[in-house]
């Protein structure tokens, strides 16, 4: 037996004639962490979906432990290939432990399910991940980050030989990422091989042994992580030099555009008060489940507040539905892209103009105008798509995120709430989005910026609100915006203690 | 409940076309009449949309401790076991129209399904002078329909010069009758007469014929004796010259028989003490001469 777990020979994949992967030849060693990076739409997810049997390659061969296999989902499972997919692969109607053991249930007497055993094991797995989630909780009641932790636990629960992780950290805070990395190291020690995909080049560089770079579906290079730094990675990914990541911060005005006073939501938010100034980027930081998403949802009228008031431009407003939010020029970019953000069976144009459809309608929809507008966004954000009529389910994750962003933007808001805006977006596109936010605030638009990436928060925000279990624990300004102080307020303990 | 209270359960198919609508109407009429006449009588009237539902209704009646059951069975065989059970519990059984497969009823009051087919065929044959092309619109494919159609066909077979061009189910529905007739009119260049078996269907048929602008059809025959068609006959309509009865009022007769049996009354002019065990209502031919006697303007059918 060779030292390689997986080998591919001349792998290529076409979707209705469009070649999205071309001639990929790689060998992945047993027990290594193999990173894959590349721009949005480079073909990373497609590649691993060939390995785990979701797609069949158009050309080429896959060897697993030296056997040439025609992969299928069933075979992959049997051979010990497990995946944490980019989009959630959880059954909303089932609860946590049922999801974790879906397709691989423990049984008693070879007939009945052994629920207790599965529950117990689930608690163990989650504990290993430093997460407390009730194994009997329904998936639909979990926050996005919690779902991500369940996905991780699910992949770990199986006896894997190959564990594939497609952007597992996009909604996780540094705290969880750290836990995950420790877990990965343990798994590797046990002889498990890991493929790791992420747009966080720092993380990739830190955790991976070797890194493959893809560009436009083509192989660029494989490097030892030790031999390459982040900047080089980014440049080779994009194929040109990248410059400064974060644009300069814009001085906000004194005027409040949004005031939130003593806002309460039963069981979720506790006496939240803050204000947002015109032209400001106001960051929201905190650990998983801190309640940031809930706060945003309350402001746009999805959740009912039990008490408190919201003022827009100094005037008290009752915002009890997203329609009212849009009327008050508030836009929201949700973190749960496929759950609440985009319609996967709608095309790009219909998605982008869904909220702002009014703009394009006199009596009938002006299809020409909507198409022009979506073409504008496709250029602006460099959205990779075969055509304007492509349904979103056929776009890569990052490109879906860009469409989601365009959709919220097209309402021409005065206040924009971004919830994890860079989720699944490549470095280059991140920069574009940061620059775009910069342009927004320059033109007097105010932004609430919820992110779990401290670097982004620090790089982008004028002030940072830190939350912990539904309460605001601190509002940081100026030089106080640093990793240490944010983490202190987020966890309640000094660094190093956790 | 008073000691001399008499409880009578009446169950009939639910009103799913004109004739069954008539059944419901006549059942209510009879119950109203009897309740006015005799305060000791308590009636329960239940419709049923399928044989199985009707079995439930009879079961429920038994819980209510009825003394007599008047039933127009949805289908014969499926109702027989439960009615038999009722009879065994001492309940007096009046079976109307659709007989049971075992002799469990005390009185059987029936319309004459084969008779309807036979009388219709005989009249049509004589009007056609034993020669011509006819089309048939049947009811819903089921036992009653088969009885009528089979009897009709048997008679027509004796006339070698009468051709049945086509025979399709119109489900006792006016709209369906209209559609089927539209199709017939496209399909057949020349039709001499139409047998629709049911007056509801006949209405649709006449409509289609009128719209087609053709004038080859010599006459139409419906069935069951709805008041509209009887009226046309009475007024001497050249196309609708006759009708054959299958009166929904038979249920009222059945109810009366049940009441009389309970009260121990005899039939007027009847020299026997007990009521007869079978009463078969003739399928009567209604023509312009006698139509007035069959016209009930206040009935729903």
């Amino acid at each position, binding site marked *: 037996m060779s030292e390689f777990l997986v080998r591919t020979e001349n792998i290529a994949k076409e979707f209705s004639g469009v070649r999205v992967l071309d001639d990929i030849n790689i060998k992945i060693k047993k027990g290594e962490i193999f990173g894959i990076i590349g721009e949005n739409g480079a073909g990373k997810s497609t590649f691993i979906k060939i390995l785990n049997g979701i797609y069949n390659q158009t050309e080429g061969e896959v060897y697993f432990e030296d056997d040439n296999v025609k992969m299928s989902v069933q075979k992959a499972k049997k051979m010990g290939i497990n995946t944490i997919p980019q989009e959630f692969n959880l059954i909303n109607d089932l609860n946590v432990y049922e999801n974790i053991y879906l397709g691989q249930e423990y049984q008693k007497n070879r007939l009945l399910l052994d629920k207790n055993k599965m529950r117990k094991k689930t608690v163990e797995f989650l504990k290993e991940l430093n997460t407390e989630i009730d194994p009997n909780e329904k998936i639909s009641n979990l926050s996005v980050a919690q779902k991500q932790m369940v996905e991780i636990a699910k992949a770990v629960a199986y006896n894997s030989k190959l564990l594939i992780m497609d952007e597992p950290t996009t909604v996780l805070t540094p705290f969880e990422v750290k836990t995950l990395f420790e877990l990965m190291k343990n798994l590797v020690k046990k002889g498990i091989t890991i493929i790791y995909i992420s747009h966080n080049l720092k993380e990739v560089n830190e955790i991976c042994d070797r890194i493959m770079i893809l560009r436009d579906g083509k192989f660029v290079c494989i490097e030892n992580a030790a031999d390459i730094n982040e900047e080089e990675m980014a440049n080779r990914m994009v194929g040109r030099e990248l410059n400064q990541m974060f644009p300069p911060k814009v001085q906000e005005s004194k005027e409040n555009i949004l005031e939130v006073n003593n806002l309460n939501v039963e069981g979720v938010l506790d006496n939240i008060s803050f204000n947002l100034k015109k032209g400001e980027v106001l960051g929201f930081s905190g650990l998983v489940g801190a309640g940031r998403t809930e706060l945003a949802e309350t402001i746009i009228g999805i959740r009912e507040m039990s008490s408190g008031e919201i003022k827009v431009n100094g005037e008290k407003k009752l915002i009890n539905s997203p329609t009212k939010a849009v009327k008050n020029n508030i836009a929201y970019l949700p973190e749960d892209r496929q759950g609440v953000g985009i319609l996967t*069976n709608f095309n790009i144009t219909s998605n982008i103009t869904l909220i702002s459809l009014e703009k394009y309608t006199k009596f009938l929809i002006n299809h020409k105008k909507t198409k022009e507008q979506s073409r504008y966004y496709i250029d602006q954000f460099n959205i990779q798509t075969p055509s304007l009529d492509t349904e979103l389910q056929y776009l890569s994750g990052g490109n879906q995120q860009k469409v989601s962003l365009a959709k919220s933007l097209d309402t021409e808001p005065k206040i924009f709430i971004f919830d994890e805006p860079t989720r699944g977006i490549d470095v280059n596109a991140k920069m574009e989005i940061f620059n775009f936010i910069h342009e927004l605030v320059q033109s007097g638009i105010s932004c609430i910026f919820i992110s779990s990436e401290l670097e982004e928060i620090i790089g982008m925000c004028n002030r940072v609100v830190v939350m912990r279990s539904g309460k605001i624990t601190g509002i940081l300004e100026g030089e106080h915006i640093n990793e240490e102080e944010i983490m202190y307020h987020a966890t309640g303990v000094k660094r190093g203690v956790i | 409940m008073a000691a001399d209270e008499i409880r009578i359960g009446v169950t009939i198919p639910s009103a799913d*076309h004109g004739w069954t609508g008539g059944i419901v109407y006549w059942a209510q009429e009879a119950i109203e009449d009897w309740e006015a006449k005799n305060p000791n009588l308590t009636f329960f009237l239940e419709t049923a949309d399928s044989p199985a539902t009707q079995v439930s209704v009879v079961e429920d009646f038994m819980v209510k401790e009825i003394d007599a059951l008047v039933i127009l069975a949805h289908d014969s065989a499926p109702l027989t076991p439960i009615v038999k059970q009722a009879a065994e519990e001492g309940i007096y059984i009046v079976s109307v129209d659709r007989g049971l497969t075992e002799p469990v009823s005390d009185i059987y009051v029936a319309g004459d399904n084969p008779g309807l087919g036979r009388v219709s065929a005989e009249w049509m044959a004589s009007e056609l002078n034993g020669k011509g092309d006819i089309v048939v619109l049947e009811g819903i494919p089921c036992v009653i329909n088969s009885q009528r159609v089979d009897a009709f066909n048997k008679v027509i077979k004796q006339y070698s010069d009468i051709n049945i061009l086509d025979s399709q189910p119109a489900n006792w529905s006016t709209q369906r009758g209209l559609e089927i007739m539209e199709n017939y009119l496209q399909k057949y260049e020349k039709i001499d007469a139409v047998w629709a078996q049911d007056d509801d269907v006949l209405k649709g048929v006449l409509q289609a014929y009128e*719209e087609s602008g053709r004038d080859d059809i010599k006459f139409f025959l419906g069935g069951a004796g709805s008041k509209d068609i009887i009226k046309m006959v009475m007024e001497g309509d050249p196309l609708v010259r006759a009708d054959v009865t299958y009166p929904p009022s038979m249920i009222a007769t059945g109810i009366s028989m049940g009441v009389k049996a309970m009260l121990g009354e005899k039939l007027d002019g009847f020299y026997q003490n007990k009521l007869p065990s079978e009463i078969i209502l003739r399928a009567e031919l209604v023509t312009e001469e006698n139509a007035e006697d069959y016209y009930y303007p206040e009935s729903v059918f």
Partner: protein
Amino acid sequence: MNDKIKRNNKSIINILKNIDFEKYGPLLALLILFIISSFASPYFLKMRNLTNILRQVSYTGIIALGMTFVIISAGIDLSVGSMTALVGGIVVLTLNYFGGGYFAIFIAIIVGMFFGIIFGAFNGLIITKWNVAPFIVTLGTMSIFRSLTLYISGASEFRSTSSLFPQLGMGYILGLPIPVWILLGLTVLYSVILNHTKYGRYVCAVGSNEKVAKYSAIKVKMIRFFTYVIVGFNVAITSVLLSSRLNSISSSGAGTGYELDAIAAVIIGGTAMSGGSGSVVGTLIGAIILGIVNNMLNMLGVSPYLQGTVKGLVIIGAVLIQRKKD
């Protein structure tokens, strides 16, 4: 040379392969059925027969157009058949009350439309306001509407006394029956609404993913509600046309089975039961397919007992043609 032919051959296969079966499936099914019917029966292609089919189709067809919206929004309406009878009864009663002249016809139509909309709104209200499953609500109102019809009429017919009223259902304009014109006109209207207005777009969004629609500031309940109002309105049109055609409405028989016919037309027309997208023109085609099947069963004189088998097979077959590849 040989080479070129080969390439041509290949491209034809490619063209056939690339036909968007999901989109043109219904049309293809219709074409196949049409061609078979033309050969199978000499009467099929007669002008009169074709217009007959169209008129026969128009009653459930018009309802099916409205049902398209309901199904796209991931709902269902089982009450349409009973509603047809009830509204029809109301139309005839109104007509008789006002004497049966042109003015009475006008009033009767207005009243009919009004009640159609009210009944549809009743369905929509319970479904959206109280969040009860559409299947249950409309199963309930199916029973309620029929029962009210029977109650009002005493299980008999509603008979119009007007001699003018039938002109509407029987009349022709430019060689086509009036109901057919209305069917075609509504198809165009609803097709425009579905594809070119905000409302249509929102109906698709709601059916595709209710949560996303809600986050996109779409008034989900309102959109849903109006799909049932549309169906009610269309049912009212059918009621007027049907009662005019027969100059009466049978309380027990009118409209029975319309719900299944209408839903079948929608699905044969390519709209998925799960909602999210669909086509109004497809529904029209679906309704015509069903009409042709019924017509051919009579024309060919298939045994009454076996007509159901043939009909069932054709319905399944029509959808089989347009099935999605996995």
